[in-house]
């Protein structure tokens, strides 16, 4: 059973005089026992779930329903299974190139999905697979894309880092570039008078990019409904946050933009933070906000990184056993009588079956036809007369 002790992570430097958020996944208290599945009941988050910078603290009391909690559990478990399947497929050399897995960070993506509207927009960097599924994609579509098949969400043309849905703008390969693009999506939402916001996400590694600050400035200047979300998993590839950032309190780096640091391992806190941010930007029209989720990835930066040359195995093990978001939620569900251990095991089993089925279907999908090389270079119907191939006898004539 996970302990209730607050675990300070190695080397984590906190701003002078401030306590950082604690990151155990199971410190939320029940206030009112749930009865049936859809009746809301109240939880109370640990007081160290949030740290604020020039904004009021979110309400520690959260309303949830049993069915919502079960859905969260099911989604987190399924997303983890999907990432683990991708891990296995990569090691079997069926996935090539880049593959960045989000194992350990599930509370952020699933928590976000429960705190926002389906017409809000999300954009992130390359650790994007769970977002692609949760924002209207499919597991089969993601796996098929990783396998480079026609049935992939990008028809096999993008790969791991370039998967999109109408409310999710990827999946982006250039570190930091997605942040101004996210501010641009928010610009359009404001321009069109939509009651929505955009979550522009990036990691601790990307947080020092100049264009991030350019986006902060314009978002604040024009009051854009942009939530800048830093997924601080403590490491930018192989570089710990302290070695890359002179100021690791990422939630304070918006300068005039207020910020909120959140325990990213507790899904209830994550959901509450996202709902708070959305209300801030959309309902209260306060302009941008910086959210920092303190989270952790068990795997390396990508499949080419074992993840143990710049941190100890003990640290990874400790995080897995004491701060895991899924185990934390499991503890809540069992303690509060929302589900029994058997029911949760059944959900686990179903998650595995769902993912296995999706992988099997993805494997059935063929490689894209050779013709697809020339497809979608330009918008359908606006192709040029001719696209040259590698030598003068190769090429595609459109008209």
């Amino acid at each position, binding site marked *: 059973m996970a302990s209730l002790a607050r675990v300070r992570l190695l080397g984590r430097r906190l701003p002078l005089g401030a306590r950082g958020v604690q990151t155990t996944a199971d410190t939320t208290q029940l206030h009112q026992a749930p009865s049936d599945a859809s009746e809301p009941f109240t939880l109370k988050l640990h007081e160290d779930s949030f740290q604020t910078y020039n904004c009021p603290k979110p309400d520690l009391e959260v309303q949830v329903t049993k069915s919502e909690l079960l859905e969260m559990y099911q989604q987190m478990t399924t997303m983890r299974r999907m990432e683990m399947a991708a891990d296995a497929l990569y090691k079997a050399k069926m996935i090539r190139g880049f593959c960045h897995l989000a194992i350990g960070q599930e509370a952020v993506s699933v928590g976000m999905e429960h705190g926002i509207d389906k017409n809000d927009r999300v954009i992130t960097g390359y650790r994007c697979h769970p977002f692609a599924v949760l924002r209207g994609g499919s597991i089969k579509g993601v796996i098929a894309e990783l396998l480079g098949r026609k049935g992939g969400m990008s028809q096999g043309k993008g790969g791991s880092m370039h998967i*999109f849905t109408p409310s999710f703008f990827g999946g982006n390969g250039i570190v930091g570039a997605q942040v101004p693009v996210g501010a641009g999506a928010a610009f359009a939402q404001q321009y069109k008078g939509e009651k929505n916001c955009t979550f522009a996400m990036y990691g601790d590694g990307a947080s020092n990019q100049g264009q991030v600050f350019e986006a902060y400035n314009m978002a604040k200047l024009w009051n854009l409904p942009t939530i800048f979300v830093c997924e601080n998993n403590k490491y930018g590839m192989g570089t710990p946050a302290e070695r890359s950032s002179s100021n690791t309190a990422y939630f304070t780096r918006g300068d005039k933009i207020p910020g909120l640091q959140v325990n990213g391992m507790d899904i209830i806190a994550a959901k509450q933070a996202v709902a708070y941010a959305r209300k801030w930007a959309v309902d209260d029209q306060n302009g941008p906000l910086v959210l920092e989720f303190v989270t952790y990835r068990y795997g390396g930066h990508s499949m080419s990184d074992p993840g143990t040359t710049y941190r100890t195995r003990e640290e990874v093990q400790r995080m897995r056993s004491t701060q895991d978001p899924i185990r934390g939620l499991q503890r809540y569900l069992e303690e509060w009588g929302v589900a029994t251990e058997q029911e949760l095991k059944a959900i686990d089993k179903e998650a595995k079956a769902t993912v296995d089925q999706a992988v099997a279907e993805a494997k059935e999908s063929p490689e894209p036809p050779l013709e697809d090389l020339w497809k979608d270079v330009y918008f359908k119907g606006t192709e040029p007369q001719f696209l040259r191939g590698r030598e003068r006898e190769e090429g595609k004539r459109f008209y």
Partner: protein
Amino acid sequence: MVSRLLLSRFAPALASARRPAAAVPRHAFMGIRRYATADTEQHTMTVREALNLAMEEEMTRDENVFIIGEEVARYNGAYKVTKGLMDKFGEKRVVDTPITEMGFAGIAVGAAFQGLRPICEFMTFNFAMQAIDQIVNSAGKTYYMSGGNVPCPVVFRGPNGAASGVGAQHSQDYAAWYGSVPGLKVVSPWSAEDCKGLLKAAIRDPNPVVFLENEMLYGGHVVGLLASYWQGQVEKEGSDITIVAHSKMVTHSMEAAEELAKEGIKAEVINLRSIRPLDIDTIIKSVKKTNRLMIVEGGFPISSRARQFDYLDAPVERVTGADVPTPYATNLEALAFPDTPLITKVAKRALYRTN
């Protein structure tokens, strides 16, 4: 996709209306608009006015079109290309930005992903290098990488290439850089006709378009022929040599053609208009006729778009910017870019003449 654009305020200028610009220095072009006479459609406008009108018309037609860039609104444009548009459309649609190219180019891309139609102005394309990742990677490649799911209907426009006396960091021609990226469309208009028609088409185009203007052409009543959207245009017919150029180099090539005509040489001048896609058919058709080809551009030599053709009597003559960063001193700057006497001389050389 190949459609005739109606330019309501122009007539396709015929040979007699074309200004012999050789003896007239740039500053003499005053940007005076002449109005239609009773009997013909004989009136012209400057390149600057044509660009302004194109944007005004498209912004009137489609409320999703907006302009974003430095000094575009209250300053009326660093080169006055967006003059009057903020007064007409308001600051929601003509947006002044801080000096943060990478940031606002990214914002333009994100807005385009969301269905708006941004016209992102760079004060010059030299500064667009700060944003080149957003142009090439975010705008240019996303449609392909998303399997056709995410179009990016953005226009990046601004002055490109040589100005006058602005030194190396402010004079580079980026046509070949952007022209090498599949996924982008790249246009380099010359005449006022080109500017109005191509800018309107670029704004309506669902692809990301890099629209390369030239500051030295803004004030000119540059009159050319109407052409279909992405095609090159033969601005002057000839039979002895084909001169292919784009943007300001078309002005010099036309002047050179006048010079050559005095000696009985009939040069055919092709205004490329579109760098990507490149209208190779028009060039080939011309070279089949003349058997001699010259290519004139302001970019550095290694990147210039020279092609080998099979129908030539003489090797391809490439006339480009010199392979040096642009110097400041006037006499040196004159040696950095092609001009009319140079083009005339090289054309003759292609014809094996030494005089």
